[in-house]
């Protein structure tokens, strides 16, 4: 078990989700083991007695998540309702327990995958592995970040920012990581072998995570080579793609890619529609936040922006489209491939950003950063236009 614990302790730290030594990790098979001794172990052990789970994470998130999560929890009334795609699809909502009481924690975890205890941390669990608990923790942090900045922008426009929120916003802005920047270059195409394609995908995936353009579990990446689309598997971490890339023949002669990313239909259509070979899809935060900023108050599709939007929306020259994960009637595979024609990228409402390239991942990676940084700048421009914001780093 020790190796598994070390792996996840490193992941929490590396991805900025928790500080060194913060995560308490529990795994139960026939016996329960913890990554370290903690006063909370005795209480948390009882969760395993009450819940049909096999793994658990309890940790304070690292800053800036900690302040954001605490603020949202304290002002939530018991449940936080983020409206980003990940929460809508997988988490639904985020319950809060206002104290560390076993009863109230169990009540929340019986219904949802996580519970936030303000001032103390987040508890998440898995039923098949620690990876589930880790992914949920990461998603909670992402959802709260997006919600805080998104709500702030909306409320400042409507004059609803109080001093507490303004102070927190100012503090968070100071604590924001610097905007992503990349001066090197990625493997250059055209690629002359399958091995090069695998290497190029892995390299681009790794850099996307390193630059915090996606939380590692989500996002996807593909490259089309010799009539086969090589695409990251569903639920794979973009910073660890070795062995997790599916070859998908374009003629459909094999279903091996049944384990490919949920966005395979969109990738295939993009290749077909644009002739581009490299596709990168990340979840950079300010692109997601800005995609949810809409001034149209009276809209026939209000509340359904993730499924359908009657307007053409842009950030600069980047279209913002509706679309849900996968291939349903409102799937982003119906909107992104058309919108991305002749554009450097497309933002999907509340979800993430797609970019493409013809030869390799240099252009899509560069555009991913460029668009995200433009969105970040634009976000603060919009905030500044109301005269309240501090300067971003």
């Amino acid at each position, binding site marked *: 078990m020790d190796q598994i614990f070390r792996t996840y302790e490193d992941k929490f730290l590396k991805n900025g989700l928790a500080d060194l030594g913060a995560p308490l990790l529990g795994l139960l098979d*026939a016996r329960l083991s913890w990554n370290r001794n903690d006063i909370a172990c005795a209480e948390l052990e009882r969760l395993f007695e009450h819940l049909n789970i096999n793994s658990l994470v309890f940790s304070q998130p690292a800053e800036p998540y900690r302040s954001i999560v605490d603020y949202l929890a304290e002002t939530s009334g018991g449940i936080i309702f983020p409206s980003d795609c990940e929460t809508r699809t997988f988490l639904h909502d985020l319950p809060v327990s206002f104290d560390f009481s076993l009863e109230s924690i169990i009540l929340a975890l*019986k219904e949802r995958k996580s519970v936030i205890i303000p001032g103390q941390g987040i508890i998440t669990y898995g039923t098949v592995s620690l990876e589930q608990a880790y992914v949920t923790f990461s998603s909670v942090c992402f959802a709260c970040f997006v919600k805080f900045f998104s709500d702030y922008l909306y409320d400042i426009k409507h004059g609803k920012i109080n001093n507490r929120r303004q102070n927190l916003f100012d503090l968070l802005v100071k604590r924001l990581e610097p905007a992503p920047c990349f001066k090197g270059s990625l493997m250059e195409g055209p690629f002359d072998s399958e091995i090069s394609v695998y290497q190029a995908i892995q390299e681009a995936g790794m850099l996307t995570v390193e630059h915090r353009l996606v939380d590692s579990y989500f996002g996807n990446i593909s490259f089309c080579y010799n009539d086969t689309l090589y695409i990251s598997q569903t639920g794979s971490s973009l910073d660890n793609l070795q062995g997790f890339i599916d070859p998908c023949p374009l003629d459909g002669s094999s*279903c091996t890619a049944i*384990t490919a990313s949920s966005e395979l239909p969109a990738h295939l259509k993009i290749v077909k529609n644009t002739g581009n070979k490299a596709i990168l899809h990340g979840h950079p935060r300010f692109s997601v936040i800005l995609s949810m900023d809409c001034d149209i108050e009276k809209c026939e599709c209000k509340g359904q922006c993730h499924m359908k939007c009657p307007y053409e929306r842009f950030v600069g020259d980047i279209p913002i489209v509706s679309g849900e994960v996968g291939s349903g009637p409102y799937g982003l595979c119906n909107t992104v491939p058309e919108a991305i024609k002749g554009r450097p990228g497309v933002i999907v409402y509340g979800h993430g950003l797609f970019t493409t390239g013809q030869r390799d991942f240099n252009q899509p990676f560069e555009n991913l950063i460029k668009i995200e940084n433009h969105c970040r700048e634009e976000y603060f421009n919009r905030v500044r236009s109301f005269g309240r914001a501090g300067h971003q780093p």
Partner: protein
Amino acid sequence: MYGWCEKIARINLSDQTWSVETVDPEILKKFIGGRGLAGYYLRKRITHHWDDPDMPLLIFTGPLVNTRSPTSGRMTIMSRSPLTGTVGDSSVGGSFGTELKKAGLDGIIITGKSHTLAGIEILNGSIRITDARHLAGRQTGYVHSLLKGKGSRAVIGPAAENGVVFSSIIVDRHFAAGRCGIGRVPASKNIKYITVKGTCKTKIFNALDLKGAREDIFRLAAASPVLLGEFGISRFGTGALYDLMDARRMMPTDNFRKTKFSRASLMNAHAFKKKYAPKKSGCRGCHILCKKITKNRTPMPEFETMSHFSALLENSDIQSVVRANRICNEMGMDTISAAATLACFSEISQKRLAPDEIVSLLVDIGKKRGVGRDLGRGAAAYAKRSGHSDLAMAVKGQELPAYDPRGAYGMALAYATSTRGGCHLRAYPISHEILRKPVATDRFSFKGKARVIKIGEDLNAVADSLTACKFIFFAASLEEYAKIYTAVTGIKTSAQDLFKTGERICYNERMMNAANGFTEKDDDLPDRFFNSPGYKNGNIDIDPIDREAFLKARSDYYAVRKLDKKGMPVPDTARTLGLDVL
């Protein structure tokens, strides 16, 4: 109550009587429906021999059936298995479950034995026992055609009448209650068919909440590559798994002597689609529509059938696979057991079966003639009679499905602990070991798998009891289905409350098996999986399973399931779960 009808029908074939009784709401809450509720009623008679007239044949639906709950048009058929002697059940689709609810019933319990071959016809609250002597020996397709207009139909074929131990019940022509030899139970009671038709509506507690919960599940299904993706089962049928099993080098080949089929690319779902251009079809009320049927109503084989009638028999003739599938359906035989028995025969007789031989042997089995008479006893009995017990690839007497356990260790443990013998569906670890849902687990490790398998078994017991399709749980979870359950029934519940019910249902089944003498010796795999590799090329090696690691995982499973060290139920645990200790 909302969701349930609160009524079950008892039919006694010996004296040709029937009655409808009210079910205690507390029992419904404790066992839900489908497999859980059928198990509750079966337990009282489980020590009877399977063909004792007092042994019930149970057909049960769940509270979600006949509502707009996603993938809920299923039901469970249960009795004591003629093949294994364990609990014997099959979850089956079509529209029988829905019609049963429309007829105002949560389930039917059939006991006794008719003097002559009979049918049972249910129309709303009324039941009629009919003379079916003219249908003796008739194939299922013929009987289905004849009964068209009488609603949904469950029919046995000549195989059941002729005593084939892996006989099935065919529902609505294309849906098989295949496993455990369940078809032999109605045959032993002299029942050829059951039809049901109704007009009742199921009362829903909160339609608005149901709509919201449905949307959550549809959203997850749309995000699932396995269900609705480009290469998912909605487009290609369950055969979509074929390429993946081959790519992961865990496709049972040549009676499990190998795990890679060299001609797999010629026999995959794409090849079937290209040759037959089938259309989408499926169970009542399901939006996934994983069943594939051609214009002339020929059903495409499911994944297990495709795999076993090709790789397991080293057969690369597509047409013969389709014919084998059709014959099994017409004769009323389980395709998995039939193919595995032929593979066992092929190995013992050291004879590769040609496509035509496969087809003619299936007919011989169904008609109980020639060598078919012996093969109709199933792989385990056939191998034993031939002095080669070790060559039957079965657990507790039930032939193994198309996932080689050497390629997925959770699957190995799940095969062993399954309460109905060699079955992939009880814990369904393929979901995480191969399909990466909800997240991927290490398929070549037993670490942590004891609890994971226990949780999987509990989950699928709930799915079979609601009743919902297991496939939807590749995308959704009990978190979403708890909302559906509450919206339909008005009973406040949670994912974890439902898990607890699943645990009760599984423990009840362990108790039934223990009552019939099943012990840890039966929770085991054939020696081949511990002694022989499946595939070796240095890139992906499919090695023999480490026996010690397997036994350790099994022992851990017993601890997690709160059984004793020998895998036997413990009275205190049973009481804690609200089960009677007899």
